[in-house]
């Protein structure tokens, strides 16, 4: 019977993978992962520090929940209010701005709702309220979803009343939601980085952008080691320090997709 030997080998190799080098776990958001940012900057940090970074990319809501459960050393997301609450609750040590970009609204290339004519995002959302055009929302408590809800509130529209009709909550990640929007010829809100890096744009394009309200700030937080003894505070802090340092910031700023800068470093000096 060679099978048990095979299995034993498999189990041993499985164990080996997890015990190689010092590493930290970063609970983060899909936009940073899907845009390729981590693939671009992490090797630089690992080479300099000898610390591997394992990114778990989920929605901001889930990332914060995971970090609350102590299942990560660093939290890097984009929902400032939720991040500040995370720190205030003692789950995180302190929060730092790290970079920003902005949200955009994408839609069919002929923009049937005429969102591009709107002056503000509130006006743009008003146009959707008529119900003649479909808007797909993440509906998953992610950073993008939280932002979108805040914008609807600003516009004085409660789209959840129309959930299932012109307002479709996908309950999925950004990419899945974009795929659905494209399949349904619908509008959607996404962060610019994800959109630029997105491979399945079909005929969709950005139909609204540029409102200050669409600002998208990313923050980084060290998970509180006093509350979570498993946290690798030293390594985690090293990663945060690097992100906020000159080197880290310029690495973020240097990342380009299709000639466009996706994230703009804005750590306080």
């Amino acid at each position, binding site marked *: 019977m060679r*099978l048990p030997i*095979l*299995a034993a080998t*498999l*189990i041993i*190799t*499985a*164990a080996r*993978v*997890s015990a190689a080098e010092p590493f930290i*776990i970063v609970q983060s958001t*899909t936009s940073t*992962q*899907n845009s390729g940012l*981590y*693939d671009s900057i992490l090797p630089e940090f690992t080479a300099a520090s000898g610390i591997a970074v*394992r*990114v*778990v*990319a989920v929605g901001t809501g889930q990332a914060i929940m*995971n970090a*609350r*459960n*102590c*299942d990560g050393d660093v939290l890097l997301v984009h929902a400032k209010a939720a991040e500040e609450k995370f720190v205030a609750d003692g789950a995180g040590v302190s929060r730092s701005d790290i970079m920003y970009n902005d949200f955009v609204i994408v839609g069919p290339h002929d923009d049937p709702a005429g969102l591009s004519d709107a002056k503000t995002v509130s006006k743009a959302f008003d146009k959707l309220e008529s119900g003649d055009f479909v808007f797909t929302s993440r509906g998953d408590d992610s950073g993008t979803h939280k932002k979108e809800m805040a914008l609807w509130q600003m516009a004085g529209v409660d789209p959840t009343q129309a959930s299932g009709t012109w307002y479709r909550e996908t309950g999925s*990640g*950004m*990419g*899945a939601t*974009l*795929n659905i929007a494209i399949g349904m010829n619908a509008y959607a809100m996404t962060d610019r980085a994800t959109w630029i*890096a*997105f*491979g*399945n*744009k*079909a005929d969709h394009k950005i139909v609204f952008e540029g409102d200050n309200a669409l600002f998208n700030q990313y923050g980084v937080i060290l998970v509180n080691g006093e509350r*979570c003894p*498993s946290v690798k505070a030293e390594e985690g802090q090293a990663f945060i320090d690097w992100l906020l340092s000159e080197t880290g910031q310029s690495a973020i700023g240097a990342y380009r997709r299709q000639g466009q800068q996706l994230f703009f470093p804005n750590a306080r000096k």
Partner: protein
Amino acid sequence: MLEIGTAFRAAFNLIVGFDPDLVEIIGLSLQVTLTAVFVACLIGFPLGAVLAVGRFPMRGTLVVLVNALMGLPPVVVGLGVYLMLSRAGPLGVLNLLYTPTAMVIAQVILVTPIIAALTRQVIEDMNLEYDELLRSMGAGRLSQMLTLLWDARYALMTAALAGLGRALAEVGAVMIVGGNINHVTRVMTTAIALETSKGELALALGLGIILMALSIALNATLMGFRRTAERLAYA
């Protein structure tokens, strides 16, 4: 719209280019899945035999339960295992979350009911024929189960293959407990999910084609082995 041809070309390029990331992902997929199925067999075969041959209270209920567990949603299993292995969970100290071992655990939970339920069916059918003989020979329950398991070994391979198919194809559980971490816990299915969410549909479909080819190759190999072994050894 995406052309299937593009997907095949993507799959072809990945394979021909012997993409090192792809090799790593396939390797981890096989490692996690085969380990999980092996462990699930170690549990599921005896469990199925006990359910088939054993006579004890609640047996019928257990059979129904195991059959029902075949339909466990992977996401639910993933969430359950996450809650167990999370630092905040009871087994957090083991430090297993976001490791291949966590993925193996989740898949064992998914696959064991399938293997146990199919084993029970196979063994129960065979026992209709064997029961009187083995009892007349004075074989105890344990000896009876071992005889049945051994004689059913080729049929049980089909049960293991069903489990393998499930483990190889599921994404929900390994995504949650593995975290889809590049070079650590990224497997075929989570890579496909990732590429889909990046809108790289051709690449995602290409990976899907490779996964299917892998599954077909595994099945063909094992079924071929079964046929040869059965023919050579016993009718």
